[in-house]
């Protein structure tokens, strides 16, 4: 992938006029200085490769496929970045993702709650689970890995018990416009995803909440001494990721037109979101991360999955190739970020 950069740079540098060259170099440096640059290069590189290998990759219906595979992961990853930047992790979000559409279904079909309030209530319940995660982690000082491992199992159990492990149809009242707006229509998931990613990017980079999140994750003691209420920040971020998980779950249920107790397999979407965040440049240890990077990370994962399906790689060798592709892309990513840091000094 680093070759691609050199090639484009050489191509850009080709015109002999000196001022233009300087401007282009400035633009290039500015670009490379951004944390998301390397993963963007990887995403674009993969796109070019797959488009070259299989013309169907860039057709409109397939772009819809890719967007639908990217969006739920990216939405969950947006919240996951906040939690991870504040120095914690949430393993339970995949279970919340499965529970939220069931809660919506129970509220509508058994308690006759109108559709929109039912969805909002389902999100509220998700937020309460996030609160519990944060509360147990902060007040009882249980490591979040363990806390959320516990809630992961509790919530999955609740899903299986209440649904009798049986899939449910989308409630009649929710079909039609609501379903289309919330995931059913081709591009609706992507639009929500971009709005959410944009919003939380601003939250993380330009608000006090974001600043405090970085501070708490980077140096907990320093942050508390400086008067930041770390508990509030951490609990809040747990609530954000759980709510986003619930929202992604509801949208995915609308998209596949069924409420499945195995939605996300409990851990599939959580694992994808953590991977997307890390691929996008969020540190596992906390203190730094980017929401847009996580979106691009989710895009890379979706591209790999879709592209390999498209060129006809079967399920068993798929994992070998996916694993190798992740390693190669990420080695390129690390190499590119090293270039970036070198350029900065």
């Amino acid at each position, binding site marked *: 992938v680093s070759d691609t950069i050199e090639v484009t740079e050489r191509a850009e540098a080709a015109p002999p006029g000196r001022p233009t060259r300087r401007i282009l170099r400035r633009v290039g440096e500015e670009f490379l200085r951004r944390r998301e640059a390397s993963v963007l290069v990887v995403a674009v590189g993969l796109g070019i490769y797959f488009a070259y290998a299989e013309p169907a990759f860039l057709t409109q219906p397939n772009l819809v496929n890719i967007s639908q595979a990217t969006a*739920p992961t990216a939405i969950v990853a947006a919240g996951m970045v906040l939690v991870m930047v504040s120095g914690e992790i949430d393993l339970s979000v995949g279970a919340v993702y499965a529970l939220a559409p069931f809660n919506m279904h129970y509220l509508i079909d058994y308690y006759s709650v109108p559709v929109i309030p039912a969805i909002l209530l389902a999100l509220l319940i998700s937020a309460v689970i996030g609160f519990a995660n944060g509360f147990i982690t902060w007040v009882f000082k249980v490591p979040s890995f363990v806390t959320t491992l516990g809630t992961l199992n509790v919530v999955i159990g609740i899903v299986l018990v209440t649904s009798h492990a049986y899939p449910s149809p989308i409630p009649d009242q929710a079909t039609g416009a609501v379903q289309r707006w919330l995931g059913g229509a081709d591009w609706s998931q992507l639009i929500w995803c971009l709005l959410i990613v944009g919003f939380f990017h601003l939250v993380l980079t330009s608000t006090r909440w974001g600043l405090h999140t970085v501070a708490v994750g980077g140096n907990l003691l320093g942050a508390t001494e400086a008067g930041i209420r770390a508990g509030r920040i951490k609990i809040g971020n747990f609530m954000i990721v759980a709510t986003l998980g619930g929202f992604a779950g509801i949208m995915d249920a609308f998209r*596949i037109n069924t409420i499945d107790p195995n*939605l996300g397999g409990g851990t599939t979407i959580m694992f994808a979101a953590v991977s997307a965040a890390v691929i996008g440049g969020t540190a596992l240890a906390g203190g730094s991360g980017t929401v847009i990077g996580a979106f691009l990370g989710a895009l890379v994962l979706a591209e790999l999955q879709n592209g390999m*399906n*498209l060129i006809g*790689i079967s399920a068993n060798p798929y994992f070998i190739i996916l694993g190798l592709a992740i390693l190669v892309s990420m080695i390129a990513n690390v190499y590119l970020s090293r270039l970036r840091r070198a350029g900065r000094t």
Partner: protein
Amino acid sequence: MAKVDPVVEQAVDTLGLNPITRRRLLTGAGLTSATLAASALLAACGSNDNKSSSGSAAAAGAGDFPSTPKYKFVFVCHVTTNSFFTPTQYGAQDACALLNTEFQWTGSKDAVVAEMVNATNTAISAKADGIALAVVDKAAFKAPVDQALDAGIPVVSYNADGAKGDPGTNRLAYIGQGLYESGLALGQRALDAGLASGDVVGFIATPGALNIQPRIDGASDAIKQSGKPIKFTPVGTNADVVKGASIIDAYAQGHPNLTGMLAVDAGSTEALGKTVAKYKLRDKSLKVAGGFDLNPGTLTAVKAGNLDYTIDQQPYLQGFLPVLYLYLYKLSGGLIAPPETNTGLLFVTKENVDPYLQTKTRFEGSSTQQQVVQRSGAIAHA
């Protein structure tokens, strides 16, 4: 292809192949043979009119069939890496080799419906020539299947086909076991084997999953309809075989007076056999134990008498037949419509279990090797 140019024959002789390969090559079956033939021709005879000869070899279709593009069929599975489907993949592979087509095995590793829908949609955008789909949810696949049909892509279902009385999609046909019927048969067989009263348990790995739930419904109905004083209790185990085994173990310890133990999925059946052996339940009140599929542990348990029977649903055919049907559909322009096919309900008991244990074949997924399995003696019949 009946007549082979003598020059081609000579050229092929230079390759030093065994007689079967040689004949296959000369009759032009398979892409490899075409390539081989072409390379042999190029290598062996520079002087001859090899263009037309190699051209005719490459243009030939499978067997007597006319030349076709190399059709690509996509199998979407709910548990892509589950060993149950290993023979299914071999079946598809063998059918593809026979018909000079190719297939892709994809879907979800952990029965995640969203991933299966993604894989189906991708197959549609990739303009696959046919799709075989395990319909494990009765609502999620309706739209994707309709889209595929709208795009002119034939779709059949295999292994799972929606719920009882509701196939869940507009697929052209189902190739697999009649799930509810097989459950009925499981229960009926238990009654025939002398189950008359007492507590009976039915283990199911994933209650509600449409590839096995109809079976337990069938078993339950069979026992109810018999009118005998039997109390049937369905018990959920786990998709994870190891966890499932400990649940079955615990249940057996807690209920020492069971008269029958049934299981409706491969993992639970295997674990059931082990549990019966571990607690020597056959020496106690247990009259009947039976289940599904041909896991190695299940077969040894049948041999040892810990299980009375297990039901073979012939997964090999669930891969072989979809390819064959989709190919014929494409070849005939839709005149040959895929037929509904029950891949079978074969009881494996102590009497006929030996060949399953002694041979390792592609048909059971226990060997990758192509071979002719010799059988001898009378064919068992009623």
